[in-house]
């Protein structure tokens, strides 16, 4: 059997189906240079109204207090933390693609990195609103920072929730810088193509005087490498610290040492799923098929298979060690998760997170857009359930008389749905006003970009070092 071109070990896969730099610029710049279209406006209005709903519900919360949420003793952490972790997790794929895959020289990342970095930033913003409002007295939210004050009141540095503040704010800052820095050469490209004065002015400001000089590129590449090196530990640290929120406690089912890498694997898993969901649509709508090939989708599916299986390993290890520990409370926590009142959420999690990615063992599924799209939706749902399952473990705490059943209220649901409005509002603006794929980076991985491309006696000449 002749292997597919992308799988042939004697060749490198084609990353861009074009041999013309100008064509690549045209493809990627086109959506930002055409007139606003009606569908886009309608979608923006729709997401905007959900965003308003979210703001309104936070206003209601601000007025009324957390009593309007379903949280109560024993489940004192409900949707807010579930949604927070879910959104934060989503962001991780962007950082993994932009930092770790860069360090591992995975050139195919250039086709998807800009898109997923944008997703990271918006997802972190959606995540941030939950803890911000969950503090209760939002008007004194600045107390989460160690600011000197006349009452000499300081945050509790021993609390993982306080570590979260730094983990998330560092993550957001670095992701934003990384994203913006990558955008500079592309903004300059758009600036040079701009045909109105206003557009040219705005793009000039944000392109920071980029002229594409050799020195600019040299500084750019060095900065890119440094930012990648800074972001790489962030991919692991952010979700590890989020997992500490649970794992530092003594709650059975929460306190387990595998939590940090398990949360990281889950985060990357859900992040790739959402990138894939969005990208499958975007490449159809905006005609990016020459730059985001099936090869890219397939690679992301392989990542989902890998991280989904790692998450499965963590589930298995938790259950095994819960039994092996001989601790009856630990054993009960897991028995109760699988067979107790919330059995449906546990099995939804297992089905979506462990079973559904196993379809990606098959090559035709990995390269089938409809299947991939459906499976990524399953994964997103499954990863939400994972956090739900962990959080509602609280419903059966140490004191059986206080056991209860957590029910989210309509406010919980609509606030969560409202964050989608926030996410998609930003995302639609990004799709319209910024280059969705990294123009310069995509060109960099085309064979034509090699300085040896035109010396035609093939591999031998390119082997010699200069």
């Amino acid at each position: 059997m002749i292997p597919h071109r992308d799988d042939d070990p004697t060749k490198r896969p084609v990353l861009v189906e074009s041999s013309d730099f100008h064509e690549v610029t045209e493809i990627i710049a086109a959506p930002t240079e055409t007139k606003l279209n009606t569908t886009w406006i309608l979608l923006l209005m729709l997401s905007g109204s959900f965003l308003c709903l979210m703001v309104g519900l936070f206003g209601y919360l601000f007025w009324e207090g957390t009593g309007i949420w379903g949280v109560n003793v024993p489940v004192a952490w409900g949707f807010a933390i579930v949604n927070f972790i879910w959104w934060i997790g989503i962001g991780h794929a962007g950082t993994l693609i932009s930092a770790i895959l860069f360090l591992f020289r995975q050139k195919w990342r250039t086709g998807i990195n800009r898109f997923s970095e944008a997703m990271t930033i918006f997802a972190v913003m959606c995540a941030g609103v939950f803890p911000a409002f969950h503090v209760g007295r939002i008007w004194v939210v600045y107390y989460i920072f160690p600011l000197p004050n006349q009452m000499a009141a300081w945050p509790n540095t021993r609390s993982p929730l306080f570590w979260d503040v730094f983990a998330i704010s560092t993550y957001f800052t670095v992701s934003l810088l990384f994203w913006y820095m990558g955008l500079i050469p592309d903004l300059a490209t758009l600036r040079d193509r701009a045909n109105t004065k206003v557009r040219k002015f705005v793009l000039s400001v944000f392109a920071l005087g980029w002229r594409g000089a050799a020195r600019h590129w040299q500084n750019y590449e060095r900065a890119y490498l440094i930012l990648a090196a800074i972001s790489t530990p962030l991919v692991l640290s952010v979700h590890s610290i989020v997992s500490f929120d649970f794992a530092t406690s003594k709650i059975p089912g929460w306190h387990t040492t595998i939590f940090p890498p398990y949360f990281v694997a889950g985060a990357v898993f859900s992040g790739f799923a959402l990138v894939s969901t969005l990208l499958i649509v975007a490449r159809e709508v905006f005609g990016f098929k020459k730059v985001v090939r099936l090869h890219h989708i397939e690679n992301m599916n392989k990542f989902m298979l890998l991280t989904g299986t790692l998450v499965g390993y963590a589930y298995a290890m938790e259950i095994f060690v819960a039994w092996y520990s001989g601790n009856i409370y630990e054993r009960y926590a897991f028995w109760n998760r699988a067979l107790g009142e919330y059995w449906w959420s546990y099995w939804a999690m297992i089905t979506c997170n462990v079973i559904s990615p196993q379809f990606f063992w098959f090559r035709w599924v990995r390269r089938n857009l409809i299947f991939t799209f459906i499976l990524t939706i399953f994964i997103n749902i499954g990863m939400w359930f994972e956090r739900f399952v962990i959080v509602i473990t609280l419903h059966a705490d140490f004191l059986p008389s206080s056991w209860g059943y957590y029910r989210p209220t309509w406010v919980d649901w609509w606030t969560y749905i409202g964050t989608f409005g926030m996410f998609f509002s930003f995302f639609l603006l990004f799709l319209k006003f910024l280059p969705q794929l990294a123009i310069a980076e995509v060109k960099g991985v085309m064979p034509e970009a090699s300085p040896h491309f035109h010396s035609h006696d093939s591999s031998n000449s390119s082997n010699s070092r200069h």
Partner: protein
Amino acid sequence: MVDSRDTIQLNSKLAKSTSWFLGAGVLGVLLCAVSYFQDAQTFFASYLTAFSFFLAISLGAIFFVMVQHLARVGWSVTVRRTAETLANNLLILAVLFLPLLLGVHELFQWSHEDVRLVDHLIQSKAAYLNLPFFFIRTAVYFTVWSVLGWWFLRTSRLQDETKDPALSTRMGKVATFGLILFGLTSTFYAIDWIMSIDAHWFSTMFGVYFFAGAVVAFYCTLILVVTWLKSTGHLKTSVNTEHFHDMGKLLFGHNIFWTYIAFSQFMLIWYANIPEETLFFLHRGEGLWKTISLSLPWLHFVAPFLFLMSHNIKRRPALLATGAALLLTMCYVDIYWLIQPNFHQNGPHFGISDVGSLLAVGGFYLFFLIHNLRQAPLIPVGDPRLNDCLSYDNGIPE
């Protein structure tokens, strides 16, 4: 193409050095025998330590080989044969493992009927911790590892002759299932043969911890073996500065991963402060054990982290190998620290049994390694990605 003037066949002069390793192995066996008659338990503990250390290197190697095929890696082709041969050593390890079967009662409290009868916790784990199941599991681990180690080297050597690219595709496919089997078997080896020595203690991270250390130990060994081959006149052009740089980067990265896992495990147990878990660290926090515990963060992480940071060091084989040798020593200390405090509560007891076990396992391990390196070219000459590897450049000005 490979430079025709490059030496890619192990020269016979070097091959003679195998007798030294064989000699070391025999000497080790004698020392082991002496220590066994002094104190059987001390001997078995030492032997398990030395054995697990060399096993970790080969497990790291089979992991590396499978990942290279799965991810279709180009840069590593010329060092992969060394890794394949290290992985193939799982065969000799399966033999060297056999003496440990005699030491089960010395090593594992839970294997004693009388202990089980009075120990509620051990009783509640009896469905897992019982001798028949334990031996079956162990047999499965070594079968899986031997088959994987043997198959990847054999297929790669077959490709030397046939130059068939389809073999690369096949190795990539086998690697997928192989990695899953590897993940499960190495986790449960760590649980069975290391964690269950203290049958009351448990940690969900333990398998990952052993794995992380194994990969670090492997990269150190790979760097050392490749440096040694180069310094004896082999692989002059096939392995160049770029490859050392890359191996150094991966060692650096994986060592940070080990630290991350080690820290997470320690921090969560320390923070929650639940007696059944903290005992592990309490045992290792007394007397000289405390010094060894503290040496792990400083010498397994901080010192290598600072040392390996600069590309000037990673690109100089002599310096990189020095760092790798020190870090490899710390990998041994790490495994020593996992196993031995269970047997010598008052402090480490490094003696004739440890030296003997290291010589015995290490001697035969290296003998087998060189014996196998001799049988085929030192690089996979039939690999379709060989040119990618030879022409790779990190783009750092000399």
